[in-house]
């Protein structure tokens, strides 16, 4: 077991989580205010996705060009480009849950660290939901 990739994964998790807290993505009220376009709309969270994509895009471009990462293992293969029913239905179901609670998976894990009881319920049921999806709609690509 190599130690360095584990340490780097931990560090990137910490940075990712700090970004979620700082940006307001871990605050369900802020998320709902962003989604509430017809109410008192707070568009600030658009900058979170925009900022993250702007920084990540060159890295993905670079990774595609060199196909081999710093620590040696190949870059994850891109998904197939098919837009199918599973993708659209799954995204719609995810959006329904996100709109109800104002929490998506990353902030759910971050909020566990806040020690909030609601976060434990949310993350536990999220894991159950993921298992159910694996049972009812197993991934077609191994």
């Amino acid at each position: 077991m190599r130690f360095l990739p584990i340490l780097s994964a931990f560090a990137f998790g910490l940075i990712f989580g700090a970004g979620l807290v700082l940006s307001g993505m871990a605050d369900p009220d802020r998320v709902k205010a962003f989604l509430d376009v017809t109410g008192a709309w707070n568009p600030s969270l658009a900058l979170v996705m925009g900022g993250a994509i702007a920084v990540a895009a060159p890295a993905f471009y670079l990774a595609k060009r060199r196909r081999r990462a710093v620590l040696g293992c190949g870059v994850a293969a891109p998904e197939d480009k098919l837009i199918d029913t599973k993708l659209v239905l799954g995204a719609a179901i995810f959006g329904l849950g996100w709109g109800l609670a104002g929490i998506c998976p990353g902030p759910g894990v971050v909020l566990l660290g806040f020690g909030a009881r609601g976060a434990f319920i949310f993350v536990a049921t999220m894991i159950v939901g993921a298992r159910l999806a694996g049972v009812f709609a197993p991934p077609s690509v191994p």
Partner: protein
Amino acid sequence: MSIVIEPAVLEQALAGGVLIGIAAAGLLLVNSRIAGISGILADATGRQASVWQWAFLLGLGLAGFAATRLGHAVPPALGQESLPLLAVAGLLVGFGTRLSNGCTSGHGVCGIAQLNPRSLAATAVFMLAAGITVFVTRHVLGQG
């Protein structure tokens, strides 16, 4: 409708987004992994579990813990929300993200950063569905 613009909040949102982008870029270039949190969480709690996934999740959770140490309060919404509603929402988020193979991070950030058509479609659909859900709960049912 009205638009709420708070400059300090905009700066924090952008700075937080940049941190998220740095983490996603780092995980890709150093670990050769996609920072898709729904997938990492599902794999870590399933048969494909590996140590780097738990290390990443530990980092995420520790960021939340560190935030409380630095005086960040637990978001009030989390205390007010009913637990059954959070349970239903969690089920839907877990099921939906696995069915579509990605969430806000995997499709919304990493997928769009590669201009992946699946991710562009998924992001459009989940943003729209979430927006409709907030519209119905707030302005039709008069809740939350």
